[in-house]
């Protein structure tokens, strides 16, 4: 809440700002990434503004836990700034650069990937490289999992640290659907045969745009052009496949395609109400978590399409003008620790997929991660091995724009 006496407030704020600016300049010069212990010492007393999408209560509660531990152990106050669309945070950094605010930025740590990362990196708006200097980075075993160094085909080059993994996973209600369709073409056939049983969130809702990319990858048979910056010729050639597919699909969707759910949570609600029998999520454990919370019926099962589904890594980045870079790095390192990753993957808490390589852990540490695979509503481990790479980040905004142009005024 703003102090009513803004005048007094602003003077105090300016003084405080100047002080902080001086100290941050001092630390910026002194940040020695090879000496982690002194970095941790420097980070003491810092306040880290962690801008992260705030649309999922489970993630928010997890970040509350992180804040408590960070304060207790490292004397760092982590403030979760709930963002509804990461693009907002990106434009905030851009605006700060335009205003000449080069060392007093309002964002210290940012949950990011894909087009937003590409935009910031391209414009030199990120601090780094720092990620591979984190002591816990070795836990992700990036040599075995190259996706830890690649964000939607763009090399991360140490400008982002992995946090969790996402993969598009489909789930269906066995009460209404015995044998779910196994690829994107089968979804069309099945949907036409049993209309009103399927829908997808309206792009540019993140999950809806991901469905468009999944369809395009399968329809084009993983055309290599998808993994390079989009050109109008390629967009024309491949987009054509997608529009033909969607034109055929839409009349058979829920409400005959005249209405699309607004978000991932909206889609889950439709499933919970029994309005549809097939849905999908970007968290492989979505169905499991929602069955436990009672939002979905116990008859729900998860699976991955037979040609694989889009998977990506959620990363953390530090804007170039972040005020508290040391604190941000200590936080990112903690989020990669076995303890934080185990809590993040615990279905009783955040329930996401860890970024660190579980099979490289010793058997005792591994036990903390065992809880999920045995649950009926979760996808099998073999299923999750069928991964598809994200297309180049430039495809997403192009697809979203074209979708809105074609379908938003039917």
């Amino acid at each position, binding site marked *: 809440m703003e102090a009513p006496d803004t005048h007094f407030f602003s003077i105090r704020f300016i003084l405080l700002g100047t002080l902080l600016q001086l100290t941050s300049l001092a630390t910026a010069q002194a940040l020695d990434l090879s000496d982690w212990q002194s970095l941790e010492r420097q980070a003491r007393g810092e306040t880290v503004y962690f801008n992260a999408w705030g649309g999922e209560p489970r993630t928010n509660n997890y970040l509350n836990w992180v804040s408590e531990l960070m304060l207790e152990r490292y004397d760092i106050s982590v403030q979760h700034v709930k963002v509804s669309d990461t693009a907002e945070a990106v434009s905030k950094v851009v605006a700060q650069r335009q205003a000449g605010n080069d060392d007093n930025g309002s964002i210290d740590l940012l949950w990011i990937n894909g087009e937003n990362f590409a935009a910031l990196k391209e414009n030199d708006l990120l601090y780094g490289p720092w990620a591979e200097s984190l002591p816990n980075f070795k836990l992700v075993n990036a040599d075995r999992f190259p996706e830890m160094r690649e964000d939607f085909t763009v090399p991360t080059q140490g400008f982002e640290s992995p946090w969790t993994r996402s993969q598009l996973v489909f789930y269906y209600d066995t009460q209404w659907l015995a044998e779910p369709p196994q690829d994107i073409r089968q979804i069309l056939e099945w949907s036409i045969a049993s209309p009103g049983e399927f829908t997808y969130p309206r792009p540019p809702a993140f999950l809806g745009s991901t469905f468009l990319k999944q369809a395009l990858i399968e329809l084009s048979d993983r055309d290599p052009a998808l993994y390079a910056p989009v050109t109008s010729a390629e967009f024309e050639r491949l987009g054509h496949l997608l529009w033909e597919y969607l034109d055929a699909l839409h009349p058979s969707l829920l*409400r005959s395609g*005249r209405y699309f759910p607004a978000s991932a949570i909206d889609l889950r609600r439709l499933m919970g109400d*029994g309005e549809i029998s097939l849905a999908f999520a970007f968290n492989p454990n979505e169905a499991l978590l929602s069955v436990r919370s009672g939002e979905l019926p116990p008859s729900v099962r998860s699976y991955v399409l037979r040609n694989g589904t889009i998977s990506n890594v959620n990363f953390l980045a530090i804007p170039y003008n972040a005020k508290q870079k040391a604190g941000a790095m200590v936080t990112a390192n903690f989020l990669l620790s076995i303890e934080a990753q185990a809590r993040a993957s615990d279905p009783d808490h955040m329930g996401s997929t860890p970024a660190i390589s579980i099979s490289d852990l010793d058997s005792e540490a591994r036990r903390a991660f065992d809880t999920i695979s045995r649950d009926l509503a979760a996808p099998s481990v073999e299923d999750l091995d069928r991964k598809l790479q994200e297309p180049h980040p430039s495809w997403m905004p192009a697809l979203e724009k074209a979708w809105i*142009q074609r379908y938003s005024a039917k």
Partner: protein
Amino acid sequence: MLRWASHSLLILLTVPILLGTLIAILPAFGYFPTLGSTEFSLDAWRELIQIPGITRSIQISLLSGVLTPLIALALVFLYLASASGSKLDNWIRRLVSPLLSFPHAAAAFGLAFLIAPSGLLSRLISPGLSGWERPPDLLIVNDTWGLTLLFGLIVKEVPFLLLMSLAALPQLQPSKHVELARSLGYRPTIAWLKVIAPSLYPLIRLPVIAVIVFASATVDVALILGPTLPPTLSVRVLAWFNDADLNLRFLAAAGAILQLGTSLLAITIWLCLEKLSAILWRFWVATGDRGTGERLVFSLGRGAMPIVLLVVSGSLAALLVNAFAGPWRYPSALPASWTLLHWTSDFQNLLTPLLNTLLISVGSTFLALVLVIATLESERQSGKLRSTATWLLYLPLLVPQIVFLFGLIVLTESMQWQGTMSLVIFGHFLFVLPYVFLSLSEAYRQLDPRWSQVASTLGASPLKSFWRIRIPLLLAPCLTAIAIGMAISISLFLPTQLLGAGRITTITSEAVALSSGASRNLIAVWAVVQLSLPMLGFLAALTVPRLIWRNRTGMREIR
């Protein structure tokens, strides 16, 4: 001494609204210094007309702008014609104020939870009556032509127009005129429609036009109930305004001016309808018909109002059930279990918006109350009654919110004054002021002047007689005005959203923001909090005078 009050009241009402509207025009034509653009151009308009579905967006805004007042007014007139003086009427009159305090957003959520394919109503009749094992695949909420939006607006505006009519009716002495007409052989309902309706309408014309503007430009109700492919014009303007890409501000400005034009067009259509119905009415009166259609009017008038009441109570029930529902599979009529989990899990997130809501509503209402009392007191002392033009009071309701708020933002941003609490309180004050004035002025003007004269005779100064005589005597009306002012502030969405730059959140702004990205249970929790705040205010306004004057029977009755 108090003359400043009525002057500043006029200035505060007119200047921000007219200035805001004028300033909103500039960026629509390319002039936006904060974004580094100082040259005029028509680019934004060229872009605007190429937006897919823009015509449909305008059509829907027009449709709800004209049909909402038409149907709501028809229902109110039919009701007044058929039910005046009946037992039902006593009931409804008592319920009108609480109905009015039901915030728009909460009412819209409740309606959605009631009539959606998987809503309470569908569950109550399934599978027994309907045979539905699963929700029917019907496009009800967010339908393409905004019919659910229209329905929600009508349900909300009927109590408003009814209250305005009830306030205006006594000066027309309806029972005398109806009796006279009846002695000439007219059936009572026909008499009411032929004699009272034509003289009542001019008295409530301004509120009706306010309804047109609200219905054609509402954002929060349209976000919840309105179409999505494409949404109404006002919803699109807000989306462009909030977009991370600041260049869309030009498009948003052009859209806001288009919204102003759309609302004006809706008013123009309404004025034509006025002319047409005047002719038809005159023709109908001239026929001298005394009873035809009586039964139809009677059943429509008596039937419609209970239906509106039922819909509102059903919406309330749907909200309450969802706020405490455990797992709730379709088609069970009620949840399998009840839980407080939705409340406890979100309690922390509720706190800041709740405190902001209280601060903003108390602040804006207090400012408005001081100014209104000062104005009324100066009016009384100078002996010039009704010096304030009533239509000016309606100004904040006659210009679409999104238009002049947009201009105010452009202005405050260029002065680096955006997103502060004081700005939000000021924005709310503009909307609270008219209601506080309208609800307090009658009681203030009608207070017997002899009380003050007696006080002066006994040697009390004007100041002393103000504090010791008039304020205590007017305690109940003042508290009612405070409750109304706070209820208005609590229900406001757009002023908080725009002037607070998204950084200052209230219960209402958060609840509306949840509409697309939260579970029904969570939304219900926020909506229940939202609607219970004004209820608590009205409860306090009723009970406080009784407590203070518990040993002064006569004081409790003064209203």
